[in-house]
């Protein structure tokens, strides 16, 4: 039996293909953002638990650690966390609806120019709502953190 030659097949893009959003639409960018914000928030969560655990060492330890985080850069980082968590939540709710079949549209015959019914205005609106909510939450966070 003849073996299939794999050496000539250079079609595996790997992580570069995953990270390249240039030839995809908003749906792909949203997919990419959902994963990036998820990983970012998990790293923040671990850091936040470590940061707040310094309170068990007493008031001095807590206040000295707080001085490190209550800076302009610390506040800008928190605004990024607010934006990431708002987008991840709102887009996550859209994905739950999509997974259970809500907002996908009805199946239809694939005719040229082959625009899939699943990538309809409902999905695009959901992505835009997630982005707008995220921007609004970041603005609110900015007013709270820098408004004092």
């Amino acid at each position: 039996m003849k073996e299939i030659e794999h050496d000539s097949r250079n079609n595996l893009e790997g992580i570069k293909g995953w990270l390249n959003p240039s030839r995809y639409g908003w749906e792909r960018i949203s997919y990419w953002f959902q994963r990036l914000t998820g990983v970012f928030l998990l790293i923040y969560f671990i850091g936040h638990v470590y940061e707040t655990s310094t309170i068990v060492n007493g008031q001095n330890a807590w206040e000295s650690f707080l001085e490190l985080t209550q800076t302009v850069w610390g506040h800008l980082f928190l605004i990024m966390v607010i934006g990431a968590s708002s987008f991840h939540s709102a887009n996550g709710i859209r994905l739950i609806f999509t997974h259970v079949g809500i907002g996908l549209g009805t199946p239809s015959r694939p005719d040229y120019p082959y625009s899939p019914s699943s990538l309809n205005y409902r999905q695009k609106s959901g992505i835009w709502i997630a982005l707008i909510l995220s921007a609004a939450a970041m603005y609110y966070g900015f007013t709270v953190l820098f408004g004092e």
Partner: protein
Amino acid sequence: MMERHRMLKESQIMKIHYITGIAAIFVVAVHILMRLIVPFGSSLEYDYIISNYKNIFYVFILESILVLISIHGFNGIRIILLV
């Protein structure tokens, strides 16, 4: 006779992922509200935080966040590695 492995089905894992995600939104919202019901600077004062930790309802909320985000977050990493 081989031991039968009782694994969760992918659909069950995704239900857990979605339920933990939605539940996390609510408990994190309560956690953030606890910082916003007083001026932000005062909400980070040592005595205020210790008084928060003496509230059993709030402690339950914090423990829920720890459990829900851990399940949702680490399962999310598994999903990223799969898809």
